[in-house]
């Protein structure tokens, strides 16, 4: 599986999620679920791509919740993402997100998440656990 979120130099936000999701799952099981609003969401504030156990991502509308907390509570990206990931059952959700201002967040409550990020300011990270 792979998911990607980006904000370009003009501040445009976009996300793409391909299903695959929770490693070690059976054929035919729901993966990340690229359904917009569940595992994939972008608006003028942020772009989010979630991965993990599809059923939980759908139940918690993970990607949209992050955007909603930013939109309606005024939370920064990192707090919004941490709140949504903490609210999902342990071991089921991971997400990557960027905000319009170029803030990057990679949160997961699983043992691991294959992830990487980079910003124009020079910050870069690649990790698994």
């Amino acid at each position, binding site marked *: 599986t792979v998911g990607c979120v*980006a904000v370009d130099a003009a501040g445009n936000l*976009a*996300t*793409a999620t391909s*299903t695959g999701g*929770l490693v070690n799952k059976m054929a035919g099981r729901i993966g990340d679920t690229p359904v917009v609003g569940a595992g994939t969401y972008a608006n003028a504030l942020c*772009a989010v791509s979630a991965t993990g156990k599809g059923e939980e991502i759908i139940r918690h509308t993970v990607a949209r919740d992050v955007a909603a907390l930013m939109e309606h509570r005024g939370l920064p990206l990192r707090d919004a993402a941490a709140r949504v990931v903490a609210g999902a059952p342990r071991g089921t959700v991971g997400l990557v997100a960027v905000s319009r201002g170029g803030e990057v967040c990679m949160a997961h409550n699983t043992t691991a998440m294959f992830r990487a*990020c980079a910003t124009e300011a020079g910050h870069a990270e690649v990790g698994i656990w």
Partner: protein
Amino acid sequence: MGWALALHGGAGDVPRTLPPELREPRLATLRRCLDLGTAALRDGRAALDVVELVVRPPSPSPTPRSPASPGGAARVHVRPGPTPTGLLTVCGDVACRCGSWRTARTSTPAGAPCSPPTAPSRWRRASWRAPPCAAAPSRASPPSPTPSRSPGSSWRGRRTSTSPSTAPRPSPGTRYAVRGCALVNRDVMRACSSIGVETKDPSHFITEHNIERLRQAKEANRVQIDYTQPLKGQQTPQETPAPIPTDDNSQTG
């Protein structure tokens, strides 16, 4: 603060004891994807172009990275089937979304109709009912023998190639149930061929690794999943997490 990019390659119980020969290729693939995306952003490309570029495989990669990667462990399932190599299923559904589409609701509704004006009426109705994603782009059996190499491109191509002005206008009073479209299976293949998305022969997706996993599953007569515990006497090295407790069906379904 300028451009930024983040990507993931799946989450779950990846054991910390993952051997270097399995860990390093995955980290290298993450770095390669990151370099691909950052180079595009540095060139001033739009965010939507960049996310699509990253989820599309630039070149065959032995590690799971995208639905179209040959042998992507979580996406390509080779099951006993009518052909010697079994029945191929590529679970390649994908969705893209651009932040500004929401603001563009009046001109191009999010999930705008993606059915070409000439689509059969049956398909058009189907396209009204589901969220914008493309799924199951392939079956190794007629009439769609050649799988789509990149579900993401097929979906985006379909979405951008149909402008509202050419999309069929519903008769006044038609209710929108859900604004969006779902292209599944044969429909995806039809969409791919109509917009020239690159497709591959099913053999492109099947690797020795898949065939070996199918052989082990048949031999053990049990589900074989990415990090299955090796059975006693099996020679092939396995990523060795703790076995899945039999009463926990959260991962095996």
